[in-house]
């Protein structure tokens, strides 16, 4: 009877250990690894759009210097379109992070900071475009002090956006390494528990065998 109870207890513990391992690994996968992967795709896309916007910004400056009115207009349109797409991607990023409702998590804080920086950049860009469009009305387009100053300010804000994106990606990279470490720890602990249970099982078997032998001798 005692042997049956012991064996049942050990088998239950082994099943619990195995289920707990599976549950923990599943949690790491669904709550950390997969969302981080999704975030990385969107941040990389936003980053690519930022680079395209930067190129467009420099093209506008070049067309202004070269007095290329024909190309300037289409470039301004392209810049505006890219900015709209960037905002859409940012909204997508927010939508995959916000449902968790954990306001103090790193992805949430990163997205909030990124949104603040992009809003400031877009406002500066709108100001810059207004100034460029104003000069378009003149017979000959040329760089004004105002456009140069606005472009410099835009550059600084753009640098901050790029830096925030880089740190977001760097943080996610560190998170991936940390989640791998967590997975290793979970596996190692589960293995230790398994060994411990098997040793316990072996001890019970040895004790029971000895008791049985003694009883037979008597």
């Amino acid at each position: 009877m005692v042997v049956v109870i012991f064996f049942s207890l050990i088998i239950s513990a082994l099943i619990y250990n195995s289920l707990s391992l599976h549950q923990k690994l599943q949690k790491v996968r669904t709550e950390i690894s997969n969302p981080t992967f999704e975030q990385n795709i969107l941040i990389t896309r936003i980053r690519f759009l930022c680079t395209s916007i930067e190129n467009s910004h420099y093209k506008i400056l070049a067309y202004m210097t070269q007095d290329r009115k024909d190309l300037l207009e289409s470039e301004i349109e392209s810049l505006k379109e890219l900015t709209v797409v960037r905002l859409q991607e940012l909204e997508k990023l927010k939508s995959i992070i916000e449902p968790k409702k954990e306001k103090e998590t790193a992805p949430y804080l990163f997205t909030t900071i990124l949104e603040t920086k992009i809003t400031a950049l877009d406002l500066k860009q709108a100001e810059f475009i207004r100034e460029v469009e104003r000069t378009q009305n003149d017979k000959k387009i040329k760089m004004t002090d105002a456009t140069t100053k606005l472009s410099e300010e835009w550059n600084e804000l753009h640098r901050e956006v790029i830096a925030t994106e880089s740190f977001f990606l760097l943080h996610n990279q560190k998170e991936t390494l940390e989640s791998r470490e967590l997975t290793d720890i979970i596996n190692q602990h589960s293995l230790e528990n398994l060994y411990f249970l098997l040793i316990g099982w072996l001890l019970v078997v040895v004790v029971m065998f000895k008791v049985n032998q003694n009883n037979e001798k008597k």
Partner: protein
Amino acid sequence: MLLGFTLLLFLPIWFWYISPELTKIPDDFEYKVLVFSRDNFYDVDKTEFSGEFVSNTEHFYRVVENHAGILLITSRFTVQQYDGKEIFSVERTYAVDSKTRKHVPGYGDRDREGYLFAPPGLKKGQNFTYWHVNYDNPANMEYRGEEAIAGLTVYKYETNYHADQTFDLEQVVSPLSDRGVNVDINLQLWVEPVTGRKIKYEDHTTAYFYNLTTGERLHPWNRFQNNVDEISVLKQVEIAKHEKLKRFFLERIITDLIAIVAILLLSYQLFNRKQKSEQRR
């Protein structure tokens, strides 16, 4: 009879010597967490803070030497701006008793008070002294209540204190010829009470420039905060749960088992002797 007595004598050896040896900080101890840092520098010209940005932080503790039970532990905390410029960087050497986790004077790079994290076996409401890497000053942690993080019971602690960081920041804040930097700190800790392991922490700090001669504060330098990332918290919870189970098994189960077996053996032998003497009569 002899086995019963042996076990009874073995009980204090197990409890006072062997069990603490098995639960002490190991020689390969390492504590690494992902810290999420935010800085907000003060713009003197605009007389306002220039806006929050995220910094790249590295933080770990690692055993470097063992002097007969006193561990020399390197504790590093570095914060970098997005352009790679260092905002803050310190590396300290702690001397910690591997069994009690208390700082030991005379071994590290300076004498310290308190514990590496917290003393094991914390009681509800018990306060303790903690040494936080950034500020290199004792922090008297006050008990704030009990919480659960990912199924693990933890005690929350908090303190508000001040520190002078002129020495730590002289490489990154210039010019510091007549100015120093001091900080107002709000520090919160979440500790697993059985093991004394730090599960997570948060600090909200404002650093000020001050006149080294008069001590008068001139203007803020930086308002920053550090939080442990969610994934690192889960990692610490997993480690603490395992350590707690190990402690429970070694300190309670094994100790109780030795005591019970010793008492049963002695009682059985005494009962047998009594029966035999009664039979002789």
